[in-house]
């Protein structure tokens, strides 16, 4: 069952179309508005700059511009200072996680992930957002 529609807008990026679709489903179930689901860092960064979403969910290991690169760009852009960044990665070591957090990620999610768990986490964001309004 999908969550009630939230005002939060999300952009997702993962080079694996299956994972992208899986994350899209989890996003919809959390009731977030999916602005765009993209397959590489460059187009994700273009969409983020244009749409200025509330949340971005980025795969770390994408060809070309990585999720870490996009995170750094977001953090460097003052117009995106309210955008929350979730990184998704198969790299599980503490060092990899530290790099993600140092780049500016708010959360570092490890593959494989539970779509149910991801939906719940995104729903929490939505509730926090509503509470803060």
């Amino acid at each position: 069952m999908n969550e009630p529609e939230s005002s939060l807008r999300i952009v997702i990026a993962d080079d694996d179309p299956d994972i992208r679709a899986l994350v899209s489903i989890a996003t919809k179930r959390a009731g977030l508005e999916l602005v765009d689901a993209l397959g590489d860092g460059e187009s994700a960064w273009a969409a983020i700059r244009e749409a200025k979403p509330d949340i971005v969910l980025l795969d770390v290991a994408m060809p070309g511009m990585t999720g870490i690169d996009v995170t750094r760009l977001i953090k460097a852009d003052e117009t995106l200072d309210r955008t929350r960044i979730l990184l998704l990665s198969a790299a599980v070591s503490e060092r990899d996680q530290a790099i993600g957090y140092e780049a500016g990620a708010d959360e570092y999610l490890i593959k494989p992930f539970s779509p149910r768990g991801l939906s719940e986490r995104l729903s929490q964001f939505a509730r926090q957002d509503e509470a803060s309004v």
Partner: protein
Amino acid sequence: MTLGSLTHRYTLGEVSPLAKQAPMAAMFVIAITLGALESGLVVHELYSFVVSGFLAAAATVLAAIFSTRPSLWHFALIVPSVDFIALGFLRYGTGGPGSAFAAYVILPVIWFAMEDGRQNALYAMIGTAIALFLPLIVGENLLHDPSEWLRAIISPVTFGLAAAIVNEVSRQARYRLDSMRQLAAEREEMLDETRDHTRALAASEAHLRELEGLMRNVWEAATEQIVVGTDLTGLIDVWNRGATRILGAHIDPLAEARYIEEFHLTTELDERAEALDFPLWETVANPRFAALIDRARQGDPDAGEWTYVRADGSTFPVHLSVTPRMDDSGVPVGYLFIGRDLTREREVNRLKDEFIGLISHELRTPLSSILGYLELMRDDDETELSSNQLQYLSVAERNANRLLRLVGDLLFTAQVDSGKFRVDKSEVDMSAIIRASIETSRPVAANAGVTVEGDGIPEKIVLAGDSVRLGQALDNLISNAVKFTPRGGTVTVGISTDAGNACISVSDTGIGIPADELDKLFGRFFRATTATKNAVPGVGLGLVITRAIVHAHGGEMAVRSEEGVGTTFEMTLPLAVGALVE
């Protein structure tokens, strides 16, 4: 001809009795021949003349007998004694004081005189007297003239004195000969010893040449290692081909004064010297070199990683072992540095890390899809799944999770191998970890019909550790024990503490492990024959991981097992300072 053989050949007193008697026998033959030819002129009294001939002949036969038996030679003086009597009769038979053969008496006198012992001079004198006074003994007084009496007294005394002089000269000659003999024997002994030493020396030299050759070969062959020797100040006195090749500099220690620290990264030496913070009372003339040999100078072999600088200024990592060099009496004379270029090793490790990262990513991403979509199917509200379909989903999920654990284990062991595995230590309650692991294992154990229980777990045992990793290690051991225990069996988890250590044991009543496989248990991918025979699932990484966790905590692992009876694994971990057992 040796001195020994010479002295043996000319030994006094070793002439045979027959050889000594020979002159006397010859003189008697002359006397008898003359007596036979000129009887009237020579023989005055035939009976005595004949008796003397017989006695001389008897003495010669006796001498011949003695000569054949050296063991009887100390009785050989009987022969000259008989000669004296024979001469007494000869003198009497050939005219008494006017006998032409009176001078024959000198021959037995010399025999006596030559024998060892001063008393023989006296015997010679007595023998002479017997020869001269024999006419009195046989009853006829030939000493009617006083001058005859005087001669009969003076002659034995003179002969006795002559015998004494000859005896003394012989004694001294004998003494000198004995000394020479002893010297010769000593010299022979010394020569033998010298010959033995020469042979031993030759053998040692050959062995030494062999070792030298071996050393030279090893030295020449060591082109992949930097081998540099220095004195106590760091002045290079040994430089091998490997050093020339790897560092790109040829150094002739005899021709130039170069120091080891010239080939080290200066900033690194300075940092280490600063970190060592040499005490104020210690005079350190060269802190850089002192930092390099800090442990070795205390007598401990040291091994560590340093950065070397080539002749062209480029740098590279090196694994360097430093050992003190001692002289024959054990006094330190310098240091030996053996370095191995780590560039290729580092590159391999980097590629290995990249490979592991790639594999990890490439396996975990499809697993994300599999597990994620399986979950979506299970959570799909619109299409209700049949019980069979739900069971199929469970099987797929279980196996996907199994694959995920395998990837995790492989990643973990790779981290351990590359030395990147670290534990995050804090004060943890080991009792709580044990209780949690027991609870976690119970559903699976119950399904397998195995009981898992704690045995006297104290309320709290605090030690310094990583709670997640320690839990993982204990989960591995309990999960293994459950897998290897037949239905109806028991797995018991216990903990005990002693001097500074906590010992956590996991015992089962399982199938056991063959004794000859116990030492291989902690090898990667090793599976006991009892495991493969009984089709117990696993890949052989659990114990590798468990031991790595225990070692990372400064602990040790042990195992005891008996086939068909059960197995006990023990983790011994150091307790935290001020450990609390309640």
